[in-house]
């Protein structure tokens, strides 16, 4: 189950969750990721935009792409991916070296304060391994980006032909 505590996930398709929690900070072990508003003066505010995934058959591999925007004043870092849509999911990076393409896992993906980080074809992407169901055009696949801050940023990516 995707853990989605307090996040601000704004998907271009309007499918992703809107800001949760209204900017309030629960006490105790509550999330440190905040949303917009006066109470979020020193917070991380992450937005997800333009999330999409490649079509693929059940059991096959897909990739998802998105734009992460940190509109807050505190950096955060993506440290993992959780999903029910695939047996495994990781952040990966495609690189080219002397005419050969390579892929490698990205264990930490920093999202500096005020920065936008693009996950795009031929670069960084969320790799979805061994899909539990096929992804056809128009389907939505959801996954969570685990953040170093302890929160999970929920992403809803719409499947479309690249």
């Amino acid at each position, binding site marked *: 189950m995707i853990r989605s505590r307090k996040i601000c996930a704004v998907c271009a398709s309007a499918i992703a969750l809107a800001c949760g929690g209204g900017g309030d900070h629960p006490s105790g072990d509550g999330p440190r990721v905040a949303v917009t508003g006066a109470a979020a003066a020193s917070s991380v505010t992450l937005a997800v935009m333009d999330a999409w995934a490649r079509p693929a058959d059940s059991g096959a591999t897909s990739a998802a792409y998105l734009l992460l925007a940190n509109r807050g004043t505190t950096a955060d870092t993506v440290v993992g991916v959780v999903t029910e849509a695939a047996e495994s999911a990781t952040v990966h990076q495609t690189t080219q070296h002397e*005419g050969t393409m390579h*892929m490698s896992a990205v264990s930490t993906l920093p999202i500096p304060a005020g920065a936008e980080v693009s996950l795009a074809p031929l670069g960084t992407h969320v790799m979805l391994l*061994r899909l539990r169901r096929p992804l056809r055009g128009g389907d939505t696949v959801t996954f969570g980006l685990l953040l170093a801050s302890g929160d999970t940023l929920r992403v809803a990516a719409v499947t479309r032909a690249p």
Partner: protein
Amino acid sequence: MRSPRLALFLSIGLGLTACAERPWHGIVLDPATPAPPLTAAGVAAEPASRFTLASARGSTVLVYFGYTHCPDVCPTTLADWARARRALGADTLSVRWVFVSVDPTRDTPADAAAYARQFHPSFEGTALTDAELAPVLRDWSIAAYPEGDPRTPDYTVAHPAHSFVVDAEGRLRLMIPPGVRGDSIAEDLRRLR
């Protein structure tokens, strides 16, 4: 046989500047040399999965060496091929689009063919066996090998970045880098003829 890598560097100085009208989108291999042999025997029950470059003479052939579990660069390239295919329209009859898997552990010729057809029904796909792979890598001066533990299901495969374009006379003419858009590929293919 000229190494494609060597040709790549030569073409930067020669091929591109020699083009008076406009630059090519792909990397020109100039002078063109006969394409290395490429044979995928396929399986007896699937004659469509057999592919021999020598028998494709008369057609322009695009060749991409990848694998079906490739999540990023292979689908990006084949999607650009599909756009090029659509952009060429009626001009496409003499062009063959061939996806060649270099992942003999996981991909069968049928897997590769089905994968290629997802992008366009006219695309062909085949898979090299272990025995076929080594001479192809040598003759084409390309690299392909598993990265990660090939005993696990999630290993990746390092593979050539470029699509290769062989002309109707069987000469290796272009290397198209990943990320070149479909309409640009179509422009180069029209220009080859």
